[in-house]
């Protein structure tokens, strides 16, 4: 299914908008405001409860603030199944990011500089994994493993690279568009070889865009459920899948602690992208 960043026109949302095309009378206005306030309580409730129960000193999620403890965080870091899943997830996301960025850069460059009029077609074709439900991608890779002697880990990496490629390609195409081809031509005329032009002119110019594309790929891989649900095996279980199989049988605030750590990581990454290129620009991909 299409991933979040593609369908959320955040850039558009953040820009100043024209005022309402809707008129409401007093009573309806108050009622609507109430409803929406309740809706926000509904939207934020599970998050608030999860974060707060992660600091609970007991299994229950109700406690006095003065009793807040880091017990579940200690338990998380002491549980080998969770920590190894966390490390594996981070490793997988890092490998995926590097591969998807390298291939993404080559492809974005090819689409922009060599396709000419067929650029639009090329760009849409590059978005293919985004159009296909991710479950179908992972299921068919898993099925292919019955025919092709490939380790499960390879299939998992391939699956993650596939779902990250549309993000890296779109992000890098967007930042390459801002590079004046004349700059490359100028360097070329001055005697620089093609690889040197690429490394010394193009890459530095698009570096912030490439970095934000990398962070996006990292987040997509790190948060993925659909691919890992089918392609995770013993020793190659990602953190979300480990949590999934754990809470099918048991519910413990350890999960709340892990979730809170995840939230912190995503917020941290988000702030980093914001500092780097501005969230608005980054979300436009």
């Amino acid at each position, binding site marked *: *299914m*299409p991933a979040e960043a593609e*369908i*959320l026109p*955040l850039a*558009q*949302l*953040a820009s100043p908008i*024209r*005022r*309402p*095309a*809707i*008129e*409401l009378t007093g009573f309806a*206005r108050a009622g609507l405001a109430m409803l*929406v306030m309740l*809706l*926000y309580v509904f939207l*934020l*409730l*599970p*998050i608030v*409860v*999860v974060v707060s*129960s992660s600091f609970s000193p007991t299994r*229950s*999620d*109700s406690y006095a603030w003065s009793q807040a403890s880091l017990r579940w965080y200690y338990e998380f870091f002491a549980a080998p199944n969770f920590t190894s899943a966390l490390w594996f997830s981070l490793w997988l996301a890092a490998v995926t990011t590097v591969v998807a960025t390298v*291939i993404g850069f*080559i*492809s974005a460059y090819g689409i922009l500089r*060599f*396709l000419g009029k067929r650029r639009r077609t090329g760009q849409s074709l590059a978005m*293919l994994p985004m159009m296909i*439900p991710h*479950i*179908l*991608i992972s*299921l*068919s890779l*898993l*099925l*292919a493993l019955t025919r092709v002697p490939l380790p499960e880990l390879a299939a998992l990496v*391939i699956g993650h690279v*596939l779902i990250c*490629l549309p993000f890296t*390609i779109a992000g890098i195409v967007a930042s390459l568009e801002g590079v004046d081809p004349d700059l490359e031509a100028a360097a070329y005329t001055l005697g620089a070889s093609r690889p040197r032009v690429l490394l010394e002119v193009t890459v530095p110019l698009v570096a912030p865009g490439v970095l934000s594309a990398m962070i996006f790929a990292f987040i997509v891989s790190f948060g993925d*459920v659909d691919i890992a649900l*089918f392609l995770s095996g013993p020793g190659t279980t990602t953190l*979300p899948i480990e949590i999934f199989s754990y*809470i*099918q049988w048991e*519910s413990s605030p350890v*999960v*709340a602690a892990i*979730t809170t750590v*995840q*939230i912190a990581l995503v*917020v941290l990454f988000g702030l980093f992208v914001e500092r780097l290129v501005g969230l608005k620009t980054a979300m436009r991909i």
Partner: protein
Amino acid sequence: MLLAPLGLIYLLFLLAPISFFLAVSFLKYSATQLYTSTPTLENYQRLLFDPFYTRIILDTFRISATVTVITAVLAYAMAIELFRAGSTLRGLMIFAAVAPLMLGVIARSYGWIVVLGQSGLVNRVLLATGLISSPITFIGTEFTVIVALVHFMIPYMLFPIFSALAGQDRQLVPAASTLGARPVRAFLEVTLPLSRPGVMMGSALVFTLSAGSIVTPTLLGGRQVAMIGQTVYELVMSTFNWPLGAAAACILVLCQLVVMFLYLGRARHAG
């Protein structure tokens, strides 16, 4: 050529496996070899005529449709409020609406387990106020699956509707009221029809995402709720009936694609 690696990757790891997957859905199942090379329509026949599977398919559609309608109404109200808010408040409201997206589907399902569990927040509050005398079992019911799916889907519905409203000519409603329309009528006859493409886009997204969900019904629906996504998961991961699982996945994906193209096609006409 610079595009060769990408083409090769898509061909080898995307298109070829998916074609093979499609083909297997037309093959006969064998307990020893997973699938044989005998072609058959049996798998599709079973899914479409065996009452056990038709119920699952119909349930999936019913749940997804319910989620879509509820989400559309709630997100529409939110979109209107977003318009009426000042820019600081609007920024906050947008952030709060997107914030749950940062948590994955698993973390959010866990959140609902904590909120709606036997000794969860809701039951504690209800018990404390004396409204109920023994805790209500929420986990393992269709109600909870729908609540969690609505929670998950609101952002996907909110933003298309918001974009559609943002694109409207703001002179239209004053024009309608000048012509004597009351606010409610102006909304029903001007604003609402014009925002149809946004509602449709959002509905298509929410319906397809709900229909394909696996994790939410597994964690919150227990044995009471069966949706196609779970069925595919179980057929492939525990029963190893690949042909039937593949056929179920193909039916699901086909329905998703049909809904998507139908909605998008009509939205384009309307827009």
